[in-house]
């Protein structure tokens, strides 16, 4: 059934935005927004970059690799930040993850 709850984001997670959560560029205000049930979130630049990588295929580890290479920054620090940000989003119910089918 529905989106998983109580997600624990780890390096191996393959998160994605659920159908009802939309990342969109707001032309009027010239900012990125996340549209969710009765919520509009304003992600910062880094969050937007991370969220655009959340396609349900890439793992959080892959994202950290990619961002570390792009910004020539230490992978471990990036990984910690990315996990914290995604966990916050997951706790609010705005993130889901693909899981292996068990049945």
């Amino acid at each position, binding site marked *: *059934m*529905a*989106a998983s*709850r*109580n*997600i624990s984001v780890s390096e191996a997670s393959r998160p994605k935005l*659920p*159908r*009802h959560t*939309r990342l*969109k560029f*707001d*032309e*009027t*205000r010239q*900012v990125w*927004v*996340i*549209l969710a*049930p*009765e*919520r*509009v*979130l*304003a*992600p*910062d630049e880094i*969050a937007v970059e991370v969220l655009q990588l959340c396609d349900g295929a890439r793992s959080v580890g892959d994202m950290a690799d990619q961002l570390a290479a792009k910004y020539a920054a230490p992978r471990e620090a990036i990984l910690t930040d990315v996990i914290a*940000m995604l966990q*916050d*989003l*997951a*706790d*609010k*119910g705005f993130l889901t993850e693909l899981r292996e089918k068990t049945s």
Partner: protein
Amino acid sequence: MSDILAGSKTTGAAPSDGLAVLESQRSTAETFGIPLAVLAELTHRCPLQCPYCSNPIELDRAGRELTTEEWKKVLSELAEIGVLQIHFSGGEPTARKDLVELVQHATDVGLYSNLITSAVLLTKERLSALADAGLCHVQISFQGNEPMVADRVAGLKNAHEKKIEAAKWTRELDLPLTVNAVMHRQNLHQLSDIIQMAVDLDADRLEVANVQYYGWALKNRAALMPTIEQIEETSRIVEEAAVRLKGILAIDYVVPDYYALRPKKCMGGWGRQFFNISPAGKVLPCHAAESITGLDFESVRSNHSIAWIWQNSDAFNRYRGIGWMKEPCKSCEFREIDFGGCRCQAFALTGDAANTDPACALSPLHETIFKQAEREAEGETNRFLYRNFAGGTLESENGA
């Protein structure tokens, strides 16, 4: 990351209102950016008769409602000027035969759509059609956790059972679900069970909304007002549940302002971040605003654009900012924190919307009104005046 919409309703439970994103350094009229979300009250018709209904006492009759084409034009205009979310509400929005068409249009113009419903008119087929049309979120109101209390409050037999069914369909269709529970003296004892019901229904969010006393609810205040003990217990239950259910169920809590010392920042401040459109097309600073007499609200049927009405109409500018304030608001250090509370409540209880909301301890009327509410809460009056187009019907002695 900041949440820039939470609390845009009367909740006042907002962690932050994100005005930084919306406000700019332009002229006064242009300071107030277009709201992120707009409430579209499609109709005042409703199969329920809840005694605390937030609709005005003077309900718009079906013949005055905007047509399908008029609503579509409104939706297009809203999207164009920067509104991001639309809340389809009422009355009961599913009483409109064109709801699927309107949701589809909202999707087509890029609006994120929420359905705020009593759910009793929904069928699985219709809900499925709404999902296919791009509906993003469903909020269902509950009047209790079991039929005995819930159906009596709603004034409709089998309402509770139908709601439970519709909530299950919502999750089967993988739509996010918010359970909205309006709380008062006669159902607060069910709060723990309502929280569990929301978990069992696999809801994402629960709104625990204490009744706000204007319009119908003010007429029913003696039957609805909770006791202080109930409110203290409520806060304890909500706080405990919020911690226990973190990551499972988000809980928004609306406190009853009669028992607060400080008034709520109603609507985030008059004309600052919210407007709604009434069934007949009036553009209003809040859904109760028409209860304030002497204000002329412009309609989407007028020659003015919605953006013009928002920025320039007298009704929106009348209580914007702090220039309209009298004492004790005028010199109060909190004047830009809560903007003197709720204008509708100030009008209903003092006869002048520019007075301090009596929910504020600094209002000269606070003590009197608070004591009266306290007496009502301890009283024996439990009969409801049910909401309807006939001006209300008093519940019979033996209920229903």
